[in-house]
């Protein structure tokens, strides 16, 4: 059973920021991209995606605007802000530090 709470705290936020760093997307597209890149391993339900988006927007890391898509439907498009970019850099650095430490420990036990 993979619930969003199984994700490491903040992982979902980081993934969303990373995805939006590549290009502005709407909610649906973000959810497709999440499934695609994490090959369903992380199992992010769409139900937790939207609250997370709203939370990130409130924190000023992403911003949203309504755009008309190609088939003339209105959809809410999210993009990264300057603050979000900074946050992503910090979190990735953090992540790299923690993960290299952990993998170091794991390798240690293999020896």
């Amino acid at each position: 059973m993979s619930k969003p709470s199984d994700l490491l705290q903040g992982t979902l936020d980081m993934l969303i920021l990373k995805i939006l760093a590549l290009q502005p997307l709407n909610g649906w597209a973000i959810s497709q991209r999440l499934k695609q890149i994490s090959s369903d391993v992380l199992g992010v339900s769409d139900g937790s995606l939207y609250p997370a988006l709203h939370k990130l927007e409130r924190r000023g890391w992403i911003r949203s605007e309504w755009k008309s898509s190609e088939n003339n439907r209105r959809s809410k498009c999210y993009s990264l802000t300057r603050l979000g970019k900074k946050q992503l850099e910090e979190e990735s650095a953090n992540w790299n530090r923690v993960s290299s430490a952990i993998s170091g420990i794991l390798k240690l036990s293999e020896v």
Partner: protein
Amino acid sequence: MSIEQWVYSLPLRLRSFFLRHQVDEEMKEELREHLDQQVSDNIAKGMSADQALRSAMLELGGMTQIEQKCRDARGGSLWDDFVQDLRYGVRQLLRSPFFSALAVVCLTLGIGANAAVFSWVEGILFRPYPAVAHQERLFAVAGTATGENEPTDISWPDFLDLQRNCSLCEDWFVSKITGSTLSIGDHAEVATGSIVSANYFGAIGVHPMLGRGFEPGEDVGSDSHPVVLISYQLWRNRFKGDPDMIGKTQRLNNVPHTIVGVAPEGFYGTFVGRAMQFWVPASMEGTFESGGYKLEDRGVRWIESYVRLKPGGDRAQAQHQISAIAARLQNDFPVTNRGRGIGLWALWQTPFNHAGELLPTLEVMVVVVAFVLLIACANVGNLLLVRSFVRRHEMSVRLAMGASRVRLVRQLLTEGLILSTIGTAAGLLVAYWCRHALVLLLPRGLGSAMYLPGEMDARVMAMGAGVCLLVTLIVGIIPAFQTRHLDLAGPLKADSSGVVGARGRAWMRSGLVVFQVSLSFILLVGAALLLESLERIRSINPGFTTTSVVTTGIPLLAAGYDVPRAKLFQDELIDRLSPLAGVESAAFARVTPLGYASYSSTPIAVDGYNPSPDEQTEVEYNQVGPGYLATLRIPLISGRDFSRSDDENAPLVAIVNRTMVTRYWGGQDPIGRRLQVRLQRKDRWARVVGVVADSKYESVRETPRPFFYVPLRQDFAREPELNVRTTQSQASIRAALIREVHALDPNLALYEMITLQEQVNRSTSPQLVAVTLISILGALALLLAGVGLYGVMSYAVAQSTRELGLRMALGAQATNLLRLVISRGLRLTAAGILFGAVAGLALTRLLGNLLYKVSAHDPAVFASAFVVMIAIGVTACWLPAWRAARTDPARVLRD
């Protein structure tokens, strides 16, 4: 959240807050959009339309939950919660209307008392002069003299020098209270007005509604500019709002004045305690003031003035500069200014109006109403506590359903807010009604002449709002403590049957009652101390007999009498009055003791007495007619009283008091010795012909001081006061007086007639105001504390019927139960008294100068307060105890 983030997301949050519906709609649209995409995706994968929708919804999860989560994430839901709490709270309060009404009444009284006192403090002390600009930079100016405690007035030339030389000051102006007989048609009355400098209206920023203010130069010369501005009230009431008043003449003190302007509505002049009716320029001073032309005499100190500092001006710096100017004046004019300084006083300490008099009372009142508010809060807190106990089931259910404790506390705070908001609104209304109530506390007669309005301005409103928030916190937090003890299983268990006054929750309620009792005990002690002081002040022997003497005056000056004619009139009137039935004696005196008029004073010199260089040898004296001493029954110790023959043609004589004998003649009999005085600006030698006992001259609380009398004829005043010792009633002596006065001159009227006793009572009115106020508030506090005690005891009894029933079944008598409950209540009372007494010992000192010959720790006062408090305690416990004693054991055990 960093500041940058906060600023960045501000528009978003504002949008979530103010455009909640739109934001909500957008969110729903977004989710719908997602669903649509998923459905079409599913269909593309080959599902049927039905299947596609079901699968898509499954994948997304519960729509409503997601929406709520998004709302929470956006943070806009605080307001929704608040509205929800508000609705729920109102419903809860309406469900128990008795409780709510009681709580609101308590808060209304507490907050109303505070708001009323705030409005008085604002209207009398801080912003006393409606319509006057920049009062925050305004200071009262008065003189100081070495060796004297009381501030003095200042002289006109000194004022001009200060005005010219003070660079830190924006405006100096003079406003000296005066009075005038005002006759319009056949109706005459005394009007209160101000003698002002020509810059007055400009300096205070008040623009006349009609006509003009005074022009520069109108305050120069002697009686040279008979112009007057009248107040809006006078214009409306006496001149019927005639728009063509400007340019007409009005006689003031029998001098025709041209009305040049009408002051705007809502402007009452610049004297705390009186509403001014007219303003005349300083050049007309001789018409209104005794003592002749004084504008060029540096030695005559008679004006009351104010200064406004420049914006950003510092009081200490200004005082420094003013002191420097005063020092220069001392140097330049040693004869008149030696030992004289000039000081600034904050408006609320103004020495020459009623502000300084009321300051100590209002200071004490601020503390007292804070106490009353705390007592009221404790009461409401207690009510809420009891109710939260009743509501613990509801609270537990809400907790069990997943409400956070923070949410519960917020709910309780919201309920507190509802109560305190209603209480504050009602309290402000009460204060608004009470804003003119202060004068009602003054003795009748005096009260009607006084003007002491409260001011309900933005600052008072803000104070009210602050109090409201404070109350919300206090009364909301108290039951919130309760939620700490809530556990989910608690309410499922059977109703816990407490013991009367069991531990646990009871400690908090008991604590609140103890707190209330201590506070009310302190107020009780304060009220008793003030009452005792008033009692002692009232029983001071003023040194003359106050009974059976009436005092009044005849406006001879206003009627145009010159000095010889006035002298003749006075002699004739005394001759006509003396033989009347019931009149023991009658005499004129320039000043009647303990009244408003101030005495003349003169530097004196005595053969063989050498004053030290800094010593003030100014002594006050009174000009009295023959028979004055007998009329007031001031005991003559040796020598003789004045007689008719001590007139302007006879050698100058004086009667001195005992303190003067002790100070200047070393206690030896001064009869026949010489006394140098300065009368009508001439040094003269008077021969002492008599010695009288000391009496009180200006205040019953003063200590004995040197004082002497000279014959009225030898230092004449045209409008002395008439004192008549009579066995007749006030009404009949008044009728007789009017008859005799009219026999001499049918055009004359009488001023107000009061008994000397009433005059003495008026002089102690600040004390009376303090006593009345603190008594009212003390009674209120006692009532609230009694209600609090009653509430806690009834609740305890109601909660412990089972225990009481058991005790009874086991053989306890009704009297045992009665005693049990009352002793429990008295223990709380006693604990409260103990704390109150300890705090009281420290706090009663705040009464300071309001106490007279009563120690702040007077044991008798504490003892009587103790007795009263215990009586209140027993009374409050009696009903619950009686109910406890009537417990039916059979029914309780059956239940």
